[in-house]
Every structure is written in C-alpha cells, then in structure tokens.
C-alpha cells in the first residue's frame, strides 16, 4: 500500500451526501506525517497526485465551505456528464444562488427574510424547504436561520463563480 493509494482512498470516500473526501489533518494523520515540514509535504503530495490523476480526467479540489480535499472530474469530463443538479429548474438554482450570496455576506448564516428581500420572488420558503430536502441548506424554523451545508462547495466552482460575478460587475 503506497501513499498514493491511501491518498486516493481518502479523497474519494463519501461519508454522506455533504461529506466527501478528507481534511488536510486527516490525510497527514493517515500517512503518519508528523514532522514540522508537513505542510510542504502535503503541498507536494497534492501536486504530485494531481499530475498523476490528470490523464484520468480527475482533479484534486478543495471545498472552502468545510476545508475538505476531494476528487472531482475535470471540466471537460464534467461537460460530458452534465453535472448541473438543477437542470430544468432555474428557479431553484437562483434561490440557492441568492442564499449562497446572503450567507457569504453575513459570515455563513442568513435569515429567511433576508433571502426573500433579495430574491424578490414568491415561494422562496418552499424553495428553501426543497433545498433543505436536497441537502443544500440547514433551515432552523424556530430561530429563522438558514445555513449552507458543504454540499454546494462540492458541486459548484465557487472561485470561478465569484470571478465571473466580479467581472460582470466590473464591466
């Protein structure tokens, strides 16, 4: 069993719908890396593994919502398999987008009122409930709070999305 096999296993394991892959700490523990240069070791490990996986149409990605490293299909392969989970439901995708922006703008948590105010559409509560059932948000009815689960971080390239918004706003 070499370190690459262990790494691939740790990056491809799925505990539940919102937990895929492993954290840096878990990976270093599994590989028994304890020296003081472990961050450099980790960086090299990820780079080398990425080079190894690239020809297979896979890439190593980081989910900023839960700090997990995981395996993902590259953009070319993703185009072929149609990764959009909201295909044919742009309304729900738009509500999730607004929830995402609201959560990011207020330290990871927002309220239903805020989403309704931003979204300016009827049926936002139903959308939030549906998003909850799909595993994208956690909705606390009593406290009136909405939080994102890490799932959207796995399914959406947030970095690319924010760059696109920034460019759109700049222009």
């Amino acid at each position, binding site marked *: 069993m070499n370190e690459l*096999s262990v790494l691939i296993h740790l990056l*491809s394991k799925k505990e539940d719908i919102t937990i895929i892959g492993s954290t840096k700490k878990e990976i270093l523990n599994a590989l028994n890396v304890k020296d003081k240069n472990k961050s450099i070791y980790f960086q090299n490990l990820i780079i080398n593994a990425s080079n190894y996986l690239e020809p297979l149409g896979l890439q190593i990605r980081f989910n900023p919502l839960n700090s997990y490293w995981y395996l*993902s299909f590259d953009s070319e392969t993703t185009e072929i398999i149609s990764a959009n989970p909201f295909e044919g439901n742009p309304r729900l995708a738009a509500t999730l*987008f607004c929830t995402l922006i609201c959560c990011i703008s207020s330290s990871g948590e927002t309220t239903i009122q805020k989403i309704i105010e931003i979204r300016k559409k009827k049926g936002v509560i139903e959308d939030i409930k549906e998003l909850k059932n799909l595993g994208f948000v956690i909705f606390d009815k009593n406290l009136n709070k909405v939080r994102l689960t890490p799932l959207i971080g796995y399914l959406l390239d947030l970095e690319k999305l924010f760059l696109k918004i920034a460019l759109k706003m*700049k222009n």
Partner: protein
Amino acid sequence: MEYQDVSIEINNLIEDIKNRVLSGEISLLDIELVPIFENLKDSLNIYNINKYSNTYKNAFQLLSQKFEELKIFLEYLDNKDTFLNYVKKNPMDTEITELLENCWKEPFTLNTLSLRFLEYSKDRLVTKKSEPLKIESIDKIRLKENFLLEIYDKKFTEQMNAFFDSIKGKLPCSYEEIFNNEDDQLKIFECFIYLLHLLQLGKLKYQKETNFLYL
C-alpha cells in the same frame, strides 16, 4: 549563429496592447504576456542583445502594469458587498443560470475504494500468477549419431505391416526360416517383436508342435 531580430515586432505589439488598454478596448488581465517573453528569450543572442534591452524594459513595464491591475482586481474580489450588490440588482433566473453555467462540477466518489479493497487488489496484482499447463508437441530431431534405441521414421504399425508383407510369401514356414537370411541381432530382435504382435493380432498363427507359422 543565425541573426534574428524580432525586437521591432515585439515593441509594436507592446505599443498596440498599451493603446488598446488605454482606449478601454481590453483589460491587461485578459492579455497573455508569456508569449512575448518566450519570444524574447528564444530569439535573444549576442548579436541582438543591445537592441533587446529596450524591448525587455517595455515588456516588463507591461508586466508591472498587469500586476497592478491584478492587485486592484483582488481587492475588488475581497469585497463581499460586490456579490450582494449583484443580487440586489435582481437578476433574472435565466441570467443566474447563465452565470452558473460552466461552474458546476461533479465529485468523484467510490465507496468500494476502501483501504481493505485497495490492499486486496494490490495483493492480487502483485501475486505471481501460475501459468496454465501447456502441452507442447516434441519435434523429432534428426541426428547423425547412432543410438541403441533409434526412433524410426515410420510408425510402429507401418513397420510391422511392412514386415508382415515381406514374410507373407514365405508362409507357411518354420520360425527359423523367417530369420534365416538375417545376421543382425538387433534386426532379428525387432522382427521378433513384430511377430509377437502379429500373433497377438491374429494375423499370423503358430503351431507349437510343428514349430510352423501360417496365415
């Protein structure tokens, strides 16, 4: 060394980029500067080094400006209100869908890829597989040397039948008459074996009382 001078060409390109940026036609962030530096590096030699220093200076000025634009852009990105301002503009669902396009990705998960499975797969992969038993036919080799047990060209049955044909004319005759003309002990032994087989097969018969062989 071949004399090559593309400094004027590169200077013109840099000037063109500068003009387009100043007119607002393009952003420096959209321009790849690597090809310019690659071109400069590849064509630089001792003959054109004097001319190239100025071109290098112009290219680095462009790079420096690009860094400045990047810094501004990163600061802009860091501002969370930018995204909030965008959704406050109440974009259409179709616009959001377009924005999300090409941003979707699919995680690769494989629950069967457990450590135990990987170890088992590795063991199976590295274990030397036993080759299935292969039966090969032995080629008959012709050698010049003489051996006591010589392998004949013809099959045993063919040899036996040839012997039978050779003695058929003599029958009925005594056992001794069969080998009368043969002096070679090995040949007599060989023919005796044929006789025994012919008797066993019933092609020949033997009368013990008269010591005669007959058909």
